[in-house]
């Protein structure tokens, strides 16, 4: 959904496009032979930078505490350290080659290396938004997207928490970003931008070209991380004691703090993904708010019915499931349809976490698959429904004409497109992640020794304890 452009090179094209778009004004404008580059709006720029900070807060400390509270005290620091270090690695990899591979043209599958180490990006270069003639500084776009590359691999670690060696995991993350995350981000989000697509109709990623709608990263972030997590927990195997001894969360207080920070930070994730501070931004904002509320409540209700007690962990998990599910739909739905989406996603995730996982017996420690992948799929498919203008949705815009106009909405066809995008993501991420986990496990090894696992990763992997009474 996002786009960049080399504004200097394309300036002539832009000038021509604006010229054609405003014929009444053209006679006057024709006199000005050299068009001036558009000046980024200060409000848009401030909002995108603030959103980047909010999304960073989702990872550290939000996700770190959410996950950390769910493991046993002996593994608390290992989870915090994994998330913190992944954020550091992903930031550097993003500057090194991630931004370039994700957001430059090249093939429909992956970008090129022309902007490796942010070559050619400076304070004057611009990135496109979703409106003709509206731009933000490219650095703002680089850091905003960087925070997504930080949180996605960090989400994966929950699937095999409490039984993973630190450095092999970091190696996995570096390679996974390069061969899984960047291609999928490119396929879903890369396009030439609203001012350039009319003249370069083929300059976009594969799934963007199919017309897949993913406002803020349901496929790129959540399905992608969720299926990778499932593959990880299958390759690595179950924790010692899984199903035979209690493995209860050590601090649901921490988990509550983490879930709350995720909810707050998610406004940057979803509403920030509009790249402008305008009306659609507020649509994404309110949808993110109410879908989450409905999902938290739905989980509490279903627990009251099934287990006779509503648990804090359940409500917090429901909130996260709602956040995940509304992500692809956030800028497309309406508040009322978002409420329904959040509630439905919460119930589906509850079923996967409490029933499907137990039925199949895979040890997805912190339910990365059950919440992120499943919630992401529900959200991606439901986006086709809630985006329908007949249900108060935003529909889609045809950017191949100048200026962009609303496209004709076909819910059935959109649903098929969404399912195809989900399928590609599951297939690519699932297959490559499984091979990568397997290869690292068979070479340098992913799992600590059983004594180390029993004693805890904090003391064995990091030489410290979370709590010294």
């Amino acid at each position, binding site marked *: 959904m996002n786009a960049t452009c080399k504004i200097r090179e394309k300036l002539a094209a832009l000038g021509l496009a604006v010229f054609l778009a405003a014929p009444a004004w053209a006679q006057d404008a024709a006199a000005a032979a050299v068009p001036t580059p558009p000046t980024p709006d200060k409000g848009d720029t401030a909002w995108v930078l603030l959103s980047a900070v909010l999304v960073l807060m989702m990872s550290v400390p939000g996700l770190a505490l959410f996950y950390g509270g769910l493991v046993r005290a002996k593994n608390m620091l290992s989870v915090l350290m994994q998330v913190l270090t992944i954020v550091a690695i992903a930031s550097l990899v993003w500057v090194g080659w991630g931004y370039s591979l994700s957001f430059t043209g090249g093939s429909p599958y992956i970008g090129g290396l022309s902007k490796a180490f942010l070559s050619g990006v400076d304070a004057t270069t611009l990135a496109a938004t979703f409106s003709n003639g509206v731009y933000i500084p490219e650095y703002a776009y680089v850091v905003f997207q960087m925070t997504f590359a930080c949180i996605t691999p960090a989400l994966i670690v929950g699937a095999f928490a409490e039984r993973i060696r630190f450095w092999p995991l970091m190696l996995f993350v570096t390679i996974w970003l390069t061969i899984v995350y960047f291609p999928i981000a490119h396929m879903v989000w890369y396009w030439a931008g609203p001012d350039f697509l009319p003249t370069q109709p083929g300059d976009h990623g594969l799934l963007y070209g199919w017309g897949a709608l993913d406002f803020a990263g349901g496929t790129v972030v959540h399905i992608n991380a969720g299926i990778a997590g499932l593959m990880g927990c299958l390759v690595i195997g179950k924790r010692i004691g899984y199903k035979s001894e*209690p*493995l*209860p969360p050590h601090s649901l207080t921490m988990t509550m703090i983490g879930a709350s920070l995720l909810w707050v930070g998610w406004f940057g994730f979803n509403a920030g993904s509009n790249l402008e501070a305008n009306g659609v931004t507020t649509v994404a904002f309110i949808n993110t708010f109410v879908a989450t509320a409905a999902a938290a409540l739905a989980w509490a209700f279903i627990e009251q019915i099934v287990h006779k007690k509503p*648990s804090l*962990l*359940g409500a917090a998990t429901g909130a996260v499931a709602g956040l995940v599910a509304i992500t692809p739909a956030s800028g497309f739905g309406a508040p009322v349809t978002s409420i329904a989406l959040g509630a439905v996603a919460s119930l589906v995730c509850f079923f996967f*976490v409490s029933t499907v996982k*137990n039925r199949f017996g895979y040890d997805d420690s912190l339910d990365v698959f059950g919440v992120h992948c499943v919630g992401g799929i529900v959200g991606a498919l439901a986006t086709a429904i809630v985006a329908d203008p007949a249900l108060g949705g935003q529909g889609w815009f045809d950017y191949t004409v100048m200026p962009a106009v609303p496209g004709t909405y076909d819910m059935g066809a959109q649903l098929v497109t969404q399912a195809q995008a989900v399928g590609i993501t599951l297939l690519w991420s699932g297959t490559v992640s499984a091979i990568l986990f397997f290869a690292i496990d068979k070479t340098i090894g992913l799992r600590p020794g059983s004594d180390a696992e029993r004693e805890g990763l904090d003391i064995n992997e990091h030489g410290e304890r979370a709590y010294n009474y």
Partner: protein
Amino acid sequence: MKLIIAVIKPFKLEEVRDALSAIGVQGMTVSDVRGFGRQKGQTEIYRGAEYTTNMVPKVRLELVVEEGFVPQVIETVQQVARTGKIGDGKLFVLDVHEAVRIRTGETGRDAL
């Protein structure tokens, strides 16, 4: 001298302590303990994973009193700590051979 050990429900501690102070008990030692008896345990559910904890948290009081004082202490604890539900706890009374106050070196009943 007798040692009275009382294992009670944690939330009854303050009430028992106040009641014992009111009848003249000068001090006691309190520890957090876990255990089980006829009250089997509690069920915890985390995202559908059910754990039955067979150890229940309790509070253990230890106090040493003169022999003549024992019935009154026992009666007080038994009445105040009682909820009537399973898991109210137990009382034990043991003989104590000697007591010494570390600061002064006093022994026997003077040390209590």
